């Protein structure tokens, strides 16, 4: 589904990703962990199409298409979703309006008729339940005055509305209390099918107690330096990242 080869990315001439490789297949859940500032969020943004980053080398192929040639809105309509680490507040744009526009743009792209107001409301009700979103939330402006937890729930709600093929969740668990974490994880699990895939960027193993990953990758200095199963996350939780750094140094000195 997604194939990233030798991806090099910089911002303001500062190298962030430095030859990253990643293969994601349908039905898989990949967790990406790693210390701060190693390029996890950059990777997520580049896949979603943020134009402030400069891709200097490498490729990203998604379902056989060169993703780097495609505008962010088309990537979204093609099934890519980014759950933001810091969702933007947009005063004046209601969530309803925002989602109705987004859903109908997706439908238009697929050659489907736009949803009527009542169909749309029914869809919203259904998806709201998935993330235990209170009714009042949807009458408000996008993320305006939301608590950290509400913002993250809102991201998962949007994901549920858009039913992506590939969802990247950028530290969706940070700042969540244990109940919110459970709700978010439940939402993800309910949306998991054999046809879609998730990339979950996280600092903590605890989210992975709820969402069981098929692969855990360690991103360090702009590359994936280690890949393992879900037990790798436990090991990282226990030992931190120093032993990986040490391993790398040893390799380098050989």
């Amino acid at each position, binding site marked *: 589904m997604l194939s990233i080869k030798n991806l090099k990315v910089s911002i303001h001439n500062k190298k962030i990703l430095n030859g990253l490789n990643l293969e994601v297949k349908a039905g898989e859940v990949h967790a990406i962990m790693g210390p701060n500032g190693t390029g996890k969020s950059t990777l997520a943004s580049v896949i*979603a*199409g*943020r*134009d*402030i980053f400069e891709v200097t080398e490498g490729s990203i192929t998604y379902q056989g298409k060169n993703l780097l040639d495609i*505008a*962010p*809105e088309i*990537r*979204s*309509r093609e099934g890519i*979703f*980014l759950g*933001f680490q810091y*969702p*933007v507040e*947009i*005063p*004046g*744009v*209601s969530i*309803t*309006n*925002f*989602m*109705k*526009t*987004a859903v*109908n*743009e*997706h439908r*238009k*792209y697929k050659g489907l008729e*736009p949803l009527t*107001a009542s169909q*749309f*409301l029914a869809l919203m009700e259904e998806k709201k339940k998935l993330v235990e979103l209170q009714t009042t939330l949807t*009458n408000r*402006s*996008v993320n305006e005055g939301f608590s950290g937890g509400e913002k993250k729930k809102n991201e998962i709600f*949007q994901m549920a509305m*858009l039913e992506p093929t590939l969802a990247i969740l950028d530290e969706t668990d940070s700042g969540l209390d244990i109940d919110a974490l459970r709700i978010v994880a439940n939402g993800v699990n309910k949306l998991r099918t054999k046809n879609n895939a998730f990339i979950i960027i996280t600092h903590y193993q605890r989210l992975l107690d709820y969402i069981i990953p098929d692969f855990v990758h360690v991103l360090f200095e702009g590359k994936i330096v280690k890949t393992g199963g879900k037990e790798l996350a436990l090991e990282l939780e226990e030992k931190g990242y120093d032993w990986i750094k040490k391993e790398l140094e040893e390799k380098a000195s050989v």
Partner: protein
Amino acid sequence: MNTETKASILKAKIEKDFNANKSLIFKNGSTFMNDIRSRAFERFCAIGFPDIKMEEWRFTNLAPVLSKDYSQHFTPPDSLFDLEKVFRCEVHDLDTYTVTQLNNWYAEKHIPLCHLPNGVIIGSLAKAMEAHPDIIEKHFSKYTSFEDNGITALNTAFAQDGVFIFIPDGVEMDKPIQIISIIDAEENMLVQPRNLIILGKNSKLSLVHCDHTIKHKSTLINTVSEIFLDEGSVMDHYKMQNKDNNSALIATTCFHQEANSQLTTNTIVLNGGLVRNNLNIKLNGRGSHADLYGLYLVDKTQHMDNTTFVDHVAPETTSNELYKGIVDDQAHAVFSGKILVRRDAQKVNAFQSNKNLLLTDEATVNTKPHLEIYADDVKCSHGATVGQMNPDEMFYLRSRGISEENARMLLMYAFADEIVTKISVEALRERVCQLVSKRLKGELSICDQCVLHCNENKLPEFEIDMSKI
């Protein structure tokens, strides 16, 4: 010939017109009225039109507008009596008392002055001069000064007709009054309506004032409205401006507020070749309060200038001002907001903010907020921003599959929404919502009907739904 000389030619023509048509202009006036007109005329002759050398007109150059030739009419046009043919009024949800003004004439041939059972008077200013000289003499030209203002002097000298509204003490109007000002010019015309609106003690009124043009001839409209709010009165004032690009509109609105009166004024400028709004509010009585909201959507080569002046005369007066503008193409927007707190006006709260969204590199905004404070126990603040579309917000919307164009639309709409939501008349708010969204999409034309009654209700196959579900 340079434009300055042309402006003086126009001035000379106006002076000649005044002297030649004195008998018509002075026809239905009392000594009181004619004395004011004569003095105003003298002032206009002495001062003339404003120019960009004057601080208050630095950013709005009238010279190109004044270099054209304009005629004035001193008797009502024939079409005044066939108004239904010129203009069809279809109020959808907006249940209002509607009064219509054609050029500067009050256009109700059967009832030039309507007396409602509750004592409310709605009608022609010309008729009110005859029927209610006591009210006119008490209020006319009391809330605006023509001594050092050529534009107001010009209007006052030629003040023949306009809308007159009188709300007696204690009367709360059950529905809004809507003034529709239509300009229908067969030739280049100078039109000078004069309105006088009086709210008695503890009375209440919502007033919707729509400016509209029908024919695409060059018109210069110089309108002056005086509005008096007596103690404890409450007024919602809405000004909707949708003029064609050939028209120049100078609209001066002066509010005078007595103790504990509450004013909300909302100016929505959708279109206009050149628009200059002078909004003057005098908080003359203790405890009076004014909210000033404004929204201007400017594109192509349009020029819109909102100049406001809030004069805190009395202590414990409060004002809150927010003007927002979206400026596209090569358009030019000006905001100039002055707050004056006089020496004895202690415990005043005055806030002012102007925010602008610039869509192109060629669009220009001049924003000039200023405070003048002579009292020491006051809370005042002002601020202005000029910015572009926020790239983080754009990316967030696009990452959800929303096209760049629609994302811009949503953000522009959201920017405007802060002003639109302040409209408390629900039907009007919904209509303005639609108009603003149409305007932002470039679909709003100057239709043959009032700005509030555009007949296009059918939605395109798919569009952003601006109404909150």
